[in-house]
């Protein structure tokens, strides 16, 4: 990875020239290359200082991490900040006192709680699950921060030597049991996630991971060469927690999904199959298939003749991916950036939710420069390393997986079918009727909380207030007597779309307020929002409310929900900087569209 003969000074100078000239995007591209060539303490100091110079010029999201620890982590903090900067996050890092993590967690007035972290990393390698439980109890009562919990590591060589493998009450068994306890503990609490530190050290080789000299002199157990690997592992958690994830991955075809060029080499000539060299490309396809099952959409963007490429996609025997796995296809001779924007529009996601995979460094650079919001996966030279590079990319990580996620790819295939039908159907009303939609509104419960919180995190377009709630915050809201949380399910003739809407109503007295009202883009434009409002107003009226009020808070993305209030006869109350406030007299019922069957299930609380 590192080249001892590199010339570090010219790239540094070029970056400084670009910053001075105001070419911030080009500077960020070069900083990414620089960081890849020198991901250590000196490189981190350079990257951080340059980002600090540009912080006002770049769209960086602030985020806060507290690292509580049983070993020296100070040298890791600047590396973590550098990785985060390059992911578009301005990270504030609080490092706890040495080996004081338990006391710090148990004191709700202490520095950790005052820091108000978004996430707490528990880099603790010698604790018992029982002790951890006591600490997590206090943390969960006083903070909704996410928690990243390190597992305990097996010894490089057990104290009993090879005897350890022969006996029942072994050091190995004790370590396995402690880790099973930590995993079980994490599943009990919302927002507590396990980082398998034992597997991380094993993956890189325990012997080389450790540095006995640094451990004995500075209580720093990780060798200099592996500091970047520790930081990258933390980033795999920070990406999904901070919402820096790709919802779709757009892949090139020639020399990416198969070896060779289909237009030149033909069906018989391209490399794709279970034997080398085709096996390398099958490994890429397997990684993409794994992403697909994680709920990440797949799309193709390739400069090719469509007929040639489709023949390979449909009929090549080595293809693990089939046309049905792809939610969008752009096979033409246009430039990649406009094609990527079209794909984002077709999938109803914004460009910053796209990742781009292409073997050609020129195409990658063009996308990095022209569409800086797109995550460009930097592929190594050798195709045999492509699959690993994809699996290492943190934007594809997920910490929870709902049934909806696993089905998402199919929804989009259904959606393509639905759109075909829309084109065939004459009037809009006829189209709505032909969908045979069934809408079910239920109070949120423990089973639906995770998905509901996820929707508040991800939904940008049909979202009146764009308030983001973590699972912990959602749980707190649902326990409060002042709020009612409802979820919406939509079924139609094609599929059960699953849980696609969330509403949070602040209740009490005669005037209720809409805290949150959102609909997943998957069902936007099918009048289900009217059915949802109809059900909610019915519930509010039954509970004694006379008026329903709500804010529309405009964002860069929620224009599709802008006319929701006027369309449903809300009266404008006031307009201020942050948005407009609306009210509806509940004496007049909101009718459910006649083409939707509305069901209300379950009692609140």
């Amino acid at each position: 990875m590192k080249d001892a003969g590199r010339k570090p000074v010219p790239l540094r100078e070029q970056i400084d020239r670009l910053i001075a000239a105001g070419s911030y995007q080009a500077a960020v591209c070069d900083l990414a290359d620089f960081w890849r060539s020198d991901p250590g303490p000196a490189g981190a100091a350079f990257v951080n200082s340059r980002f600090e110079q540009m912080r006002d010029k770049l769209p960086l999201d602030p985020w806060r991490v507290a690292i509580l620890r049983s070993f020296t982590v100070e040298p890791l903090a600047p590396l973590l900040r550098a990785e985060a900067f390059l992911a578009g996050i301005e990270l504030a890092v609080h490092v706890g006192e040495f080996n004081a993590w338990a006391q710090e967690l148990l004191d709700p007035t202490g520095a950790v709680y005052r820091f108000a972290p978004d996430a707490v990393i528990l880099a603790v390698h010698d604790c018992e699950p029982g002790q951890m439980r006591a600490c997590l109890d206090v943390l969960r009562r006083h903070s909704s921060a996410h928690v990243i919990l390190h597992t305990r590591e097996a010894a490089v060589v057990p104290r009993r030597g090879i005897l350890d493998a022969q006996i029942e009450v072994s050091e190995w068994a004790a370590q396995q049991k402690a880790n099973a306890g930590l995993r079980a503990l994490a599943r009990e609490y919302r927002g507590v996630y396990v980082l398998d530190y034992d597997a991380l050290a094993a993956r890189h080789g325990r012997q080389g991971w450790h540095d006995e000299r640094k451990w004995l002199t500075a209580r720093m157990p990780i060798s200099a060469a592996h500091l970047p690997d520790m930081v990258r592992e933390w980033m795999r958690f920070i990406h999904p927690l901070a919402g820096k994830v790709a919802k779709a991955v757009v892949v090139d075809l020639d020399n990416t999904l198969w070896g060779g060029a289909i237009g030149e080499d033909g069906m018989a000539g391209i490399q794709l199959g279970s034997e080398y060299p085709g096996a390398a490309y099958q490994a890429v396809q397997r990684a993409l298939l794994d992403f697909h099952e994680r709920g990440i959409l797949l799309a193709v963007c390739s400069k090719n003749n469509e007929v040639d490429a489709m023949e390979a996609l449909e009929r090549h025997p080595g293809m693990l991916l089939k046309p049905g796995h792809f939610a969008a296809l752009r096979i033409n001779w246009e430039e990649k950036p406009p094609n990527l924007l079209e794909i984002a529009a077709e999938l109803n996601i914004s460009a910053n939710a796209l990742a781009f995979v292409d073997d050609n460094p020129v195409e990658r650079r063009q996308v990095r420069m022209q569409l800086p919001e797109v995550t460009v996966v930097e592929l190594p030279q050798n195709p045999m390393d492509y699959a690993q590079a994809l699996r290492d990319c943190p934007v594809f990580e997920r910490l929870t997986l709902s049934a909806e996620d696993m089905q998402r790819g199919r929804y989009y295939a259904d959606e393509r079918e639905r759109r075909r039908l829309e084109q065939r159907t004459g009037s809009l009303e006829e189209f709505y009727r032909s969908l045979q939609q069934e809408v079910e509104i239920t109070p949120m419960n423990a089973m639906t909380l995770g998905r509901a919180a996820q929707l508040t995190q991800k939904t940008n377009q049909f979202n009146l207030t764009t308030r983001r709630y973590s699972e912990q915050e959602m749980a707190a809201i649902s326990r409060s007597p002042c709020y009612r949380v409802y979820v919406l399910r939509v079924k139609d003739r094609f599929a059960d779309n699953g849980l696609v809407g969330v509403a949070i109503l602040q209740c009490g007295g005669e005037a209720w307020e809409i805290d949150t009202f959102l609909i997943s883009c998957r069902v936007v434009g099918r009048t289900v929002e009217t059915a949802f409002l109809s059900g909610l107003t019915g519930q509010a009226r039954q509970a004694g409310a006379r008026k329903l009020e709500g804010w529309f808070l405009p964002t860069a993305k929620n224009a599709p929900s802008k006319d929701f209030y006027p369309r449903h006869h809300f009266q404008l109350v006031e307009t201020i900087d942050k948005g407009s406030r609306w009210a509806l007299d509940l004496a007049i019922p909101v009718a459910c569209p006649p083409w939707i069957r509305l069901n209300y299930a379950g009692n609140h609380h």
Partner: protein
Amino acid sequence: MPATITERVRVIAADLFHLAPERITEQSSPELIEAWDSVQHLNLILALESEFKLQFEPEEIDLMKTIGDVSALVTAKVGHRR
């Protein structure tokens, strides 16, 4: 043309201590550079170890009082390896 060991040490120190490379001299020391505290000393050791693929003994770390000492030590260790 690959940079010399002394130049590479200077660039690393400049990055870590947020100074222009010209400001780093043979005589630069923790007394003269405010940013060179114990945490940055550990960072310097780790940066040198990964840049030059070597490992320092605790006794060697104690001898690194100036950038001149650091360059000399790294040069000796890299030379010894060859």
